[in-house]
């Protein structure tokens, strides 16, 4: 980043954060401050999981959830 850009940049940018990281951090704070039942709904959206399906002889096997984030 050029010196001029650094001077005008936001604090999170100077700390080495990308815009996506910043936006997601903001979103997380908002999600934590919701009333019920919206809080539980928002928490459910936060979870990301990986599903794996093994193909053998051109056919899909059973799909298994390998990882759930955040743990």
């Amino acid at each position: 980043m050029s010196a001029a850009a650094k001077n005008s940049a936001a604090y999170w940018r100077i700390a080495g954060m990308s815009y996506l990281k910043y936006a997601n951090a903001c979103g997380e704070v908002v999600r934590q401050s919701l009333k019920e039942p919206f809080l539980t709904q928002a928490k459910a959206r936060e979870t990301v999981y990986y599903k794996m399906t093994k193909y053998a002889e051109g056919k899909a096997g059973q799909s298994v959830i390998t990882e759930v984030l955040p743990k």
Partner: protein
Amino acid sequence: MEKFDVAKTSPTMDRPSTPTTFASAPVEESAKGTADKLKLNFYLPHEVAHDEEEVDMVLVPATTGDFGILPGHVPTVSQLRPGVVSVHLNDKDVKKYFVSSGFAFVHADSTADICAIEAVPVEQLDGDAVRKGLAEHQAKFTNAKDDFEKANAQIGIDVCNAMVAALDAK
């Protein structure tokens, strides 16, 4: 072209193509002027809050200051800061959303797009949770070891402060 029709050697001969044959129709300015309603698209990753809905006005909190979008607004792109987006559906109904961050786009044809990671109606925010969060983030800020942690805590403080302001203004 009339002369061509008279002088053509065979009656089935086509008229020659000219550049205008291939040019697209010229863009004409609409005689109606600006529309009297603004078309709003308000999109979240998990939900569509408004889709091509006709509204009177939208007030958005940009990083460079709050601004209102009315029909016929000049085209702009601006980054949003945590704050309240008020959607004026008509003279009486106003919907207020708290947005975490995101972008607002205004197009030349009186269309506005708002994209955000999180946007919740202001009444869904829990005042006690907000104040608790603010205290937590302030504690994290004083105990932060490096710039990154400090920035993370600062984000929390900024967002919580914006939420407190939104709840107080209600």
